[in-house]
């Protein structure tokens, strides 16, 4: 133990939060026990000046980091590179843009017209027959979503029992694009919590989605959170409301990774029904990179591809265990979804796309580094 006097070393502080190991344990494992040598006199200075592990972490983050990887649209392998495949590909382009796209556009427009023609009358004329009105509105929204799915030739395989309307339940799913909502809404008229969008999507959000009981929020407003939490609670307690769907990641991720879940959905005191979604990139990458394209551009891309292939798994309900915190519960469900969909977990908060990490994370590392020195000082002057 006396050898530890001159050996303070900056440990390789893990940049990803490791919930399982106590940071001081990590430090102790890294403390080097060096036998006395002629260089002992320089050892303290050497260890003090050696900031290489911390620099290494910074360089490692610059060269490649797991957060940026979550939002990278990986371009597909090019297969049209030789003399036989290229003409075939060109033919494919002609068919997709020249034949499929117009047909799909017609289908979608048709669907929209029917929807609008029916929705407004139903909404306004059946004001006194609330139950019937809501039933019809639900059916109409499901129909519209069906039209959307048809417009990209969605090949969706649903596994597991369809969601039913029951009290005290909430559905959670991983998030890749706004089409997740459309795909799920096709079979079940969920009420969803979503970010308020500009443009025609925003218009959609005002009337039809509002009629389902969808809750809008604005992620840039801090006070919004309490208000939204209140609305969520009211929704799940109301036996008349539609099943609630929440995307706990809070942002679209590229379907190769799943980021940390926000705990809001897990502290409502409800049964949580996880839904896992995995898109097959074979014809098109369904990830909506909202930084690179608008939703309209995204939809157009889907409509000019052969098909959107997706697997949806409706999974077993989960309840919070007696000794579990909502955060742990969220982590557990995230694990289940990640495993079923075959996507990797990363310990990052999706909102880091829009904000800097909390200073507490940096302070945690500073505290760990400071601890090494404090222990040295204590031993020296014990």
């Amino acid at each position, binding site marked *: 133990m006396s050898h530890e006097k001159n050996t303070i070393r900056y440990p390789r502080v893990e940049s990803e939060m490791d919930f399982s190991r106590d940071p001081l344990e990590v430090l102790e494992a890294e403390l080097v026990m060096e036998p006395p040598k002629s260089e002992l006199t320089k050892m303290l200075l050497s260890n003090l000046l050696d900031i290489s592990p911390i620099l290494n972490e910074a360089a490692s983050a610059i060269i490649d980091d*797991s957060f940026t990887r979550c939002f990278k649209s990986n371009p597909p392998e090019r297969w049209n590179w030789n003399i036989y495949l290229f003409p075939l590909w060109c033919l494919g382009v002609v068919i997709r843009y020249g034949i499929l796209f117009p047909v799909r556009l017609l289908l979608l427009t048709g669907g929209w017209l029917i929807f609008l023609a029916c929705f407004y009358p139903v909404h306004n004329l059946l004001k006194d027959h609330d139950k019937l009105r809501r039933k019809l509105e639900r059916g109409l929204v499901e129909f519209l979503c069906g039209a959307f799915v048809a417009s990209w030739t969605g090949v969706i395989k649903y596994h597991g029992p369809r969601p039913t309307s029951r009290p005290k339940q909430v559905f959670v799913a991983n998030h890749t694009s706004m089409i997740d909502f459309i795909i799920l809404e096709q079979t079940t008229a969920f009420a969803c919590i979503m970010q308020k969008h500009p443009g025609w999507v925003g218009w959609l959000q005002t009337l039809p989605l509002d009629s389902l009981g969808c809750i809008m929020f604005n992620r840039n407003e801090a006070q919004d959170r309490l208000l939204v939490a209140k609305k969520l609670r009211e929704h799940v307690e109301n036996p008349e409301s539609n099943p609630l769907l929440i995307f706990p990641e809070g942002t679209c991720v590229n379907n190769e990774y799943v980021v940390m879940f926000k705990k809001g959905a897990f502290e409502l005191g409800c049964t949580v029904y996880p839904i896992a979604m995995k898109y097959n990139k074979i014809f098109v990458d369904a990830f909506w990179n909202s930084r690179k394209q608008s939703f309209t551009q995204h939809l157009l891309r889907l409509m000019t591809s052969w098909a959107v292939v997706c697997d949806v798994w409706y999974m077993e309900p989960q309840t919070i265990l007696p000794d579990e915190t909502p955060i742990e519960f969220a982590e557990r469900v995230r694990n289940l979804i990640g495993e079923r969909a075959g996507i990797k977990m990363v310990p990052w908060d999706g909102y880091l796309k829009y904000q800097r990490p909390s200073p507490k994370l*940096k302070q945690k590392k500073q505290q760990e580094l400071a601890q090494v020195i404090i222990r040295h000082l204590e031993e020296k002057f014990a």
Partner: protein
Amino acid sequence: MGNSSSMLTQYDLEELQTHCQGIFSQREIVALYERFCALDRTGKGFILSDEFMAVPEFALNPLAERLLRTLEGVNFKEFITLLSAFSARASYEHKVEFIFRVYDSDRNGKVTMYDILEVLRDLSGSFLTDDQRKQVVIQALEEAGFSEDSALTYQDFLEVLNKAGLKMEVEVPVD
């Protein structure tokens, strides 16, 4: 090097390889260029501080701000030169030079006790008092045969730092 295209020509690659003294392989340079273009969101040809800080893993590093002083506004050539210190093929001297430059913020070739204290403050934040920091730095300097007023040079750093203990290697992911 076209700043709007994301392709490097063979000529570019060879020039870059010579520039970083052959430390990175051509595949690594291509991978680093992709990364550079990903970080440089608006395709300007250099990376802003904000764009570096958008990488959460970097933003929570205690030395991030200090490193930004050398990193911000760099073009791709400078980018790979700076990062070459972290290659497995970089020499011990090269790595120590990088560390020295982190300490020697005013570039006068000398690292004083105050420079060391500054870096230590970045590392430990508010979890150590100035007195505690001073105490440990003075002790370290005196034990090694320096004094409070000594100004360490690059040569001193080479001698003091332990070659075997240096952990400065990052692998560039190539596909």
